[in-house]
């Protein structure tokens, strides 16, 4: 049965050695070891966190870039569209202007032609009057070169005219 009876000497040494071992290891082994382990774990965790953060930032940056690109693209389109519109408008404007100018010039030309014609007609009328007076003078002069013709004429004229 002395297998089951604890020996005093061994009890004593076990208490001394085990507690000594515990105190020494706690101070010089477990403390630095667990601290280093915790520190390393924290480092790893923070590195992982940083990587995750960077990844998110990269994603955000990429999204930003894409947004920027899309914006630039739409801006370019807007600019192009604007330019085209302006060009179209300018074209239309100048066409309108040219048209109206042409119309105006035509009008003017027509008007001056009208005036010209009128002046011409007036001139011609004057010419015709002068010419016909000249003719009439000549004819009269020829007709009235003798006395008889003169008298006849006067008589005709007088007969024609009613004395009222």
């Amino acid at each position, binding site marked *: 049965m*002395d*297998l*089951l*009876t*604890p*020996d*005093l*000497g*061994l*009890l*004593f*040494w*076990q*208490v001394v*050695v*085990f*507690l*000594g*071992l*515990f105190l*020494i*290891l*706690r101070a*010089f*082994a*477990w*403390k*630095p*070891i*667990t601290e*280093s*382990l915790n520190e*390393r774990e924290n*480092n790893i965790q923070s590195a992982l966190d940083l990587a995750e953060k960077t990844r998110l930032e990269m994603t955000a940056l990429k999204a930003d870039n894409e947004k920027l690109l899309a914006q630039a693209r739409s801006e370019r389109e807007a600019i192009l569209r604007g330019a085209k519109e302006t060009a179209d408008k300018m074209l239309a404007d100048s066409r309108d202007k040219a048209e109206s100018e042409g119309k105006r010039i035509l009008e003017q030309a027509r008007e001056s032609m009208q005036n010209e014609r009128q002046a011409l007609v007036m001139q011609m009328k004057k010419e015709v009057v002068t010419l016909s007076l000249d003719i009439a003078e000549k004819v009269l002069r020829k007709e009235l070169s003798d006395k008889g013709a003169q008298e006849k004429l006067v008589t005709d004229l007088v007969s024609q005219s009613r004395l009222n």
Partner: protein
Amino acid sequence: MIRSVFNQFLLVTALILSPLVGVQAQEHGHEGESHAQHEGEAPADKGKFNVGDMIMHHIKDDHGWEFAHGVTLPLPVILYSGDRGLEVFSSSRLAHGEVYNGYKNEHGKIHRVDEAGNADHEAKFYNFSITKNVASLMLSAVIMLLVFSAVSRGYAKNKGKAPSGIQSFLEPIILFVRDEIAKPSIGPNYTKFLPYLLTLFFFILINNLLGLLPGAANLTGNIAVTLVLAVITFVIVTFSGNKHYWLHIFKPTGVPIALLPIMVPVEIVGVFMKPLSLMIRLFANITAGHIIILSLLGLIFMANHMGGMMTSVAISPVVLFFTLFLNLIELLVAFLQAFIFTLLTAMYIGSAVEDHHEADHGIGYEGTTSELG
């Protein structure tokens, strides 16, 4: 004479066959010693091989460390008595039943002798000798200090770098104790108890493994050692117990008043049963392992004694195979028992420091196993 030569032959064969089967050295040594003792006591028993004695000799403590027959390291004997004060001398003085300074070593126990030369079992004195177990204990402490100071230096040296050498070998085990034993069993306040759990785990593990070596002491299979470990656990649990822990014992919630006279004594018994079970579990497991291996090897010598040389030669391979197998199991047990002792200690501490103790309706202290999940 022939038998003795044959025993030598067996010893050499066994040692060549398996480095793991280490206990022959002691066994053989003991056989020699038992011859010597029997010669002194009863010459008629000469040559009779007693397996029981051999086994008990191996698993029990001894003055002097016998590695093999005739190869004994003498250890200091330290005695203290009221009348004679402190006495220190070498254990070799008491070898072979010699009387020195009025003391005699009988079956590993030192007794005073009276004038007639007979052991006086009544004389009171205290024996603080560095026995085989104490020497082994100190050796294991030195090993642990060397190993863990190396590990600790590794952490200082490899700061911010990957672990290397022995550091990377032991780091997973340290992390295992921390993450699989301490954290889940104790909870968020585990850091305070981690140094004790680590010391406990590695102390038991290293001594279990040392105990498997040839000629080594059976330290963790000694009840004094497991008693001290269990008492330290008990003290820690008792002194770190919080309000909930004591309330659970003396005023369990959800238990009818009429049952309290039964439940409270049961809980109080439970408080003491926990360390008691720890003590007996480790002691019994390690001792039983040693006894089985020694019994198996004893079969060879039994066969030699009863059936002659040829019988023992015939059964040796079979016995050695089984011994090898059991040694491997013992390796597993060495880890397992270190794990179980530490885990249960952590769970007992956990149940004592738990903030919110749920009513387990008197199921008892094992209710904390649910935390393992």
